[in-house]
C-alpha cells in the first residue's frame, strides 16, 4: 500500500507533461564566459560549482528526499555545451512531437536563443564532432538510421555506475576532497605529467565542494520552510531533511535515510554535470541493506518507513526527464533515462546476495509503477525460491519489470571482457541489458548498426532501395549471383563495411570527448580516477572496456538469407533477379512469391536451417568488431540490445527477402521477427540461446509476450520461474516479458487517459504505454503472444 504522500506525488508524475528548465543552461553558460582560457576540466568543474551555488532551491510538497534540477517536478534541462543545434532546430515542436514531447514556453525559447546558444556557436561537442568526421562516414552515419550514434555527440556519455561501496559511502565528498588534497601534495607542477593530474584533482575538489554546497543550501531552505510550517508533522520532516542535507553527501551516511538522500544527491550531481544516459544506481540492495538492518536493530526505522523512502526515490528517478532530440527519442523512447538498478544475484564472495532491501525494491516498482529506475534482477540457479517467486509475480503484473538476467551469463560476459573474477561476480546492469561493473568506463551504446542495410546493399548494387542513393559498397546486380554462398559473401562484405564506419564514428567521438568534456564530478565517483589522478574521459577507470556496437536486425537478416537460400537455390521457385525485382517493387505484384518467402524457415522456432545463419552473422559480428581497438587500446565489444531502435532502423530499410515490406520495423536484440515465432516460447528461447550469447559482452536481449492467463496464478508464475531457469541453463543472458493482453493495449491506445500509468516493456526497459508514439504502440501490440495450450 502506498502512503497518501507517495500516491499524491505519483499522480503528479503520471499526469504532468515534462517541462524544460533553462536555469542550468543559463548558469553553466555564464560560468563559461568567466573562465575562458582555463583548463577545460577546471572550466567544467567551475560551471558545475556555480550551478550548485546558484540554481534555485526547490523543495516540493510532501517530499522526503530533496534535490531538484529545475523549477518543475517533472523536469528536463539543457546541455548546450554538447549540442545546442538540435535544440534550436527542434524546440519549436517540442510540445507536439510524436515521441517524448516537452513543454517549453515561447519566452524560454526566446531567452535561450538570445542568451545561450550564441555563446556555444562553434564551441559545442556536436560541431567539433561533425567537423572531424570523415565525409564518407558522415554520409552513412549522421541522421541516416543506418548507423546511429547521435547520443554520443548530441549528448553526454553517461553510462556510469557510481561506486557507493568503495568510494562514496566510505568517504563522502568531504573525504574525497581530503583524498585529492593529499594526492596533490605528492605532485609537482614542475613535472609536466603531474600538471595534468593536479588539474584533475583541482577539478574534483571544486565539484565536490559544489555538491556539498548544493546540499547545504537545501538544508538552509528546509530550515526556513520549517520555521514557517504550521503543520507539526511536516515541520519535523523538514527539520529531518535539513539535518540529512547538512550531513550528506559531505560525510559518510550513517542511517538508511541519509544513505538514500546521498544516493539522490549523487544522481543530481550527475544530471547537472552532463544530463547523462544510464547513470546507474547499481546494486542498490547490496549497499543499502547494511543501513536498513542497522536502523531496524536500533529501532529508528520501520519496514513501512523504509519502503516509503524507496518509493520516494523511485519517483525522484522518474521525475527527471532526459532531454533528447527527436531522433534520439526514436531510439530511446519513453522519457527513459536508463537509470538501471540491479537487485539480487551473488555477492563478490559468491554467496547469494538477496536481502530484505531486494524484496522492497521489487515491491516499490510494483506499487509505485514508475518507469524508473530500470529494475533488473540477477537470477542464479540456486537463488532463493521466494526471490524467483517475487520476480515472476512482478512479471505477472504486466509492467515488463523486472528485466531478468542470468547471474552466471553476466559473470561470464565480464570475464570475457577481461575483468577479475571477484569484480565480475559483483556485476550490475548498465542502461538496459549491459552487464557492467561500478569501476568501469565504457560506452555501452556507442553505435546502433542496422544489419538489414547490409542485405539491402548486397542485393541492390550497393544502393538504398527506398532512396536509390549509393550508401554501401559497389556490388554486381543480384541476378549475377550464382550460388547462395556468393549472396552470403556479398552480405558480409557490406556488413563489414558498416562495422568499419561504426568504428570511425566511435573513435572520432571518443577523441572529441577527451578534448572537450572531461567529467570531474563522475570521476570523483570512481576509485581508480581518484587513485591515479586521471579523468574518466581519459581512461581513468579501473576497467576501460571497449565501446559497444549494437546490432539491430539479426532476425531480419537471418530470415532473409534463409529465404534467399530456400527460394532461389534450394527450391528454385524464383531466380535472384526475380527476387530482387520483387524487393524493388516492395513485393507489390509479387504476392505469391511473398507468401513463399514468409513461409520460409524463420529464426525463433528452433529450426537449424535458419538459426545457423543467425549464429554465423552473430559470430562474424563479434570477430569483426572485436578486431578493432578504441582510443585506449581496448577491443570493441558487441551487443544485441533492444531499446526502441528497431523501429527507426526499420523505417529506412527497404523490403527484405524474409517478406518484410518497406519501412516496417526490424528486429530487436536476439528476439525473433514480430509474429514469426509461432511455435512455443521454448523454441524462441532455444533459437536465441544458440547464439553464444556470452561473447557479446555488451549484452543480449530477448523480449517475449506471454498471454496473461499463463501467469495469472501462483502455479503459472512458478512455471514461468522454471522457464526462466531453463533458458539460463541454456546459456542465455536476459529475457523480459510483456504479459498484458492485446485487448488491454488496444483499449489503452483508444483511451489513453484511462491508462496513464500502464507500464509496458519496450525493449530492455519499460515505460508508460501512452507515452509511446502510435507506431511504437502498434509494434508492441504486434509482438507474438504466446498463449497457453
Amino acid at each position, binding site marked *: 500500500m502506498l502512503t497518501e504522500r507517495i500516491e499524491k506525488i505519483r499522480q503528479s508524475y503520471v499526469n504532468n507533461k515534462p517541462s524544460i528548465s533553462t536555469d542550468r543552461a543559463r548558469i553553466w553558460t555564464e560560468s563559461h564566459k568567466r573562465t575562458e582560457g582555463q583548463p577545460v576540466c577546471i572550466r567544467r568543474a567551475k560551471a558545475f560549482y556555480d550551478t550548485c551555488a546558484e540554481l534555485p532551491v526547490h523543495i516540493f510538497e510532501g517530499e522526503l528526499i530533496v534535490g531538484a534540477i529545475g523549477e518543475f517536478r517533472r523536469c528536463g534541462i539543457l546541455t548546450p555545451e554538447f549540442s545546442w543545434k538540435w535544440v534550436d532546430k527542434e524546440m519549436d515542436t517540442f510540445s507536439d512531437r510524436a515521441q517524448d514531447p516537452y513543454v517549453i514556453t515561447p519566452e524560454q525559447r526566446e531567452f535561450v536563443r538570445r542568451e545561450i546558444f550564441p555563446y556555444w556557436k562553434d564551441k559545442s561537442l556536436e560541431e567539433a564532432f561533425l567537423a572531424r568526421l570523415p565525409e564518407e562516414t558522415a554520409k552513412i552515419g549522421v541522421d541516416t538510421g543506418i548507423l546511429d550514434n547521435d547520443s554520443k555527440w548530441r549528448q553526454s556519455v553517461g553510462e556510469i555506475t557510481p561506486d557507493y561501496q568503495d568510494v562514496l559511502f566510505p568517504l563522502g565528498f568531504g573525504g574525497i576532497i581530503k583524498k585529492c588534497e593529499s594526492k596533490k601534495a605528492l605532485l609537482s607542477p614542475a613535472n609536466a605529467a603531474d600538471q595534468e593530474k593536479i588539474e584533475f584533482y583541482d577539478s574534483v575538489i571544486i565539484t565536490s565542494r559544489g555538491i556539498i554546497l548544493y546540499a547545504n543550501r537545501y538544508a538552509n531552505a528546509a530550515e526556513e520552510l520549517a520555521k514557517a510550517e504550521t503543520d507539526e508533522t511536516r515541520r519535523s520532516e523538514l527539520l529531518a531533511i535539513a539535518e540529512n542535507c547538512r550531513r550528506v553527501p559531505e560525510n559518510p551516511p550513517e542511517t538508511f535515510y541519509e544513505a538514500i538522500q546521498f544516493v539522490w544527491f549523487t544522481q543530481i550531481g550527475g544530471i547537472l554535470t552532463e544530463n547523462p544516459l544510464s547513470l546507474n544506481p547499481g546494486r542498490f540492495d547490496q549497499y543499502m541493506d547494511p543501513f536498513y538492518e542497522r536502523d531496524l536493530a536500533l529501532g529508528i526505522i520501520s519496514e513501512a518507513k523504509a519502503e516509503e523512502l524507496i518509493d520516494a526515490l523511485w519517483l525522484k528517478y522518474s521525475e527527471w526527464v532526459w532531454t533528447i532530440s527527436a531522433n534520439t527519442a526514436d531510439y530511446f523512447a519513453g522519457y527513459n533515462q536508463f537509470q538501471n538498478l540491479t537487485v539480487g544475484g551473488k555477492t563478490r564472495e559468491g554467496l547469494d546476495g538477496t536481502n530484505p532491501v531486494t524484496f522492497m525494491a521489487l515491491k516499490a516498482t510494483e506499487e509505485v509503477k514508475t518507469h524508473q529506475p530500470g529494475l533488473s534482477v540477477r537470477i542464479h540457479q540456486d537463488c532463493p525460491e521466494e526471490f524467483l517467486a517475487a520476480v515472476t509475480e512482478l512479471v505477472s503484473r504486466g509492467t515488463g519489470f523486472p528485466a531478468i538476467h542470468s547471474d552466471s551469463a553476466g559473470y561470464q560476459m565480464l570475464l570475457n571482457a577481461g575483468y577479475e573474477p571477484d569484480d565480475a561476480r559483483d556485476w550490475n546492469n548498465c542502461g538496459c541489458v549491459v552487464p557492467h561493473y561500478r569501476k568501469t568506463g565504457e560506452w555501452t551504446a556507442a553505435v546502433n548498426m542496422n544489419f538489414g542495410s547490409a542485405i539491402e546493399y548486397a542485393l541492390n548494387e550497393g544502393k538504398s532501395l527506398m532512396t536509390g542513393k549509393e550508401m554501401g559498397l559497389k556490388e554486381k546486380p543480384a541476378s549475377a549471383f550464382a550460388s547462395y554462398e556468393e549472396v552470403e559473401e556479398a552480405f558480409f562484405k557490406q556488413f563489414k563495411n558498416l562495422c568499419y564506419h561504426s568504428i570511425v564514428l566511435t573513435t572520432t567521438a571518443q577523441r572529441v570527448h577527451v578534448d572537450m568534456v572531461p567529467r570531474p564530478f563522475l570521476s570523483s565517483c570512481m576509485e581508480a580516477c581518484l587513485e591515479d589522478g586521471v579523468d574518466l574521459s581519459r581512461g581513468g577507470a579501473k576497467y576501460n572496456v571497449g565501446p559497444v556496437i549494437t546490432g539491430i536486425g539479426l532476425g531480419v537478416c537471418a530470415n532473409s538469407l534463409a529465404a534467399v537460400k530456400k527460394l532461389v537455390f534450394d527450391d528454385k521457385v524464383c531466380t535472384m533477379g526475380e527476387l530482387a525485382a520483387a524487393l524493388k517493387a516492395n513485393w507489390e505484384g509479387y504476392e505469391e512469391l511473398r507468401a513463399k518467402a514468409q513461409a520460409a524457415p524463420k529464426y525463433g522456432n528452433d529450426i537449424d536451417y535458419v538459426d545457423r545463419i543467425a549464429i554465423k552473422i552473430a559470430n562474424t559480428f563479434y570477430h569483426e568488431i572485436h578486431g578493432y581497438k578504441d582510443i585506449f587500446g581496448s577491443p570493441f565489444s558487441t551487443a544485441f540490445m533492444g531499446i526502441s531502435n528497431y523501429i527507426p532502423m526499420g523505417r529506412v530499410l527497404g523490403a527484405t527477402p524474409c517478406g518484410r515490406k518497406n519501412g516496417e520495423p526490424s528486429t530487436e536484440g536476439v528476439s525473433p521477427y514480430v509474429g514469426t515465432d509461432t*511455435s*512455443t*516460447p*521454448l*523454441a524462441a528461447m532455444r533459437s536465441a540461446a544458440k547464439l553464444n550469447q556470452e561473447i557479446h559482452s555488451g549484452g543480449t536481449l530477448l523480449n517475449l509476450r506471454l498471454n496473461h492467463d*499463463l501467469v*495469472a*496464478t501462483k*502455479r*503459472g508464475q*512458478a*512455471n514461468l*520461474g*522454471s*522457464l526462466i*531457469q*531453463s533458458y539460463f*541453463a*541454456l546459456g542465455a543472458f536476459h529475457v523480459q516479458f510483456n504479459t498484458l493482453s492485446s485487448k488491454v493495449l488496444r483499449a489503452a491506445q483508444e483511451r489513453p487517459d484511462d491508462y496513464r500509468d500502464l507500464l509496458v516493456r519496450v525493449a530492455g526497459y519499460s515505460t508508460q504505454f501512452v507515452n509511446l508514439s502510435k507506431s511504437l504502440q502498434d509494434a508492441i501490440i504486434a509482438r507474438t503472444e*504466446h498463449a*497457453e*495450450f
Partner: protein
Amino acid sequence: MALEREYKKEGSVMQIQHFSVNDGDGIRTTVFLAGCPLHCIWCCNPENAGCLDAEHRMTVDEVVGIVAKESIFFRNGHGGVTFSGGEATWQQGYLRALTEQLYDRGYSLSIETCGSFDFAGVSDILEKMDLIFFDLKHMDPRFHRLFTGADNAAILDNLKKVSGLGVRLVVRIPVIVGVNAYEENILKTCEFIAANAPAASLELLPYHRFGADKYVKLGLPGPDERYEELRVELAPGIAAERMDIPSDEMLEHFYDIAAAHGIGRISFK
C-alpha cells in the same frame, strides 16, 4: 503365468505439444496418441480417429528424440511428459515402449485416461506414472452410454484398481451443463470417489467449445447437432438448450460437495 507384454516400435501420434502447462507439474510435453474406445459427443479432438492412418506414424525413437530435446525445460519445476489422446492406452504396446524409454531417462510421466482399458494389460504402464488423470464423465450408466457410446461399469471398476496402485491420482470431470452438471450426478461421483479412490483429488474441467471448428473442417456433425438428437432422451431437469459452460458458482458448489466427502480439490491452471 507371466503376462505376455506387447511392445510396438511404431504407433500413431496425433500431435506433440511442447510447453504444455495444464496437464501435470511444471513445463511438459504432451504426446497425443491416436485412437479411443469412447465416442464422446463433445470430444475436442475429433480428428483422432483419422490419425490412425500412415501419415501420423512415428517410431518410439522419433518421439523420444523430440521429447529429449525439450528435457532441459523439464528440469526445473518437475516438468516432464504427459500422455494424452484419444485414449493413451488404446495403443498399448506403443505406449509401453514409450513409457519404458522415457521412464529410464528419469522424466516425470503423467497420463490422461478415460478409464476404459483392460487393467491387467496396462497396469505395468500405469505403475510407472508419477500422476494419473482419470476421467469420470457420468455416474448414470444409461447417460454414459448415450453420450460416450459405452457403459461405465468397467471404468468405475478400473478407478478402484488404479487407486490401488498408489500412484498420485487426480479424478477429472468434464463439467457440461445439459450432460452431467447437476447435483445428483456430482454427489454420486463424489460418493464413489470417497469410497473407492480415497486418496484421489478432484479437478473440474469446465466444458469449452474449442473443438467446434474441427468438426466443420472434418465435415462431421458438430457437438451441438449431436446433442440436439440426444437430448430427447434426457429428463427435463437435466436437458439444456445446448451443451453449455458451467458458471463459476456452480463449480464452487460442486467443489463444496467434494469437500464434504473429504475429497481435496486441485487445479493445474
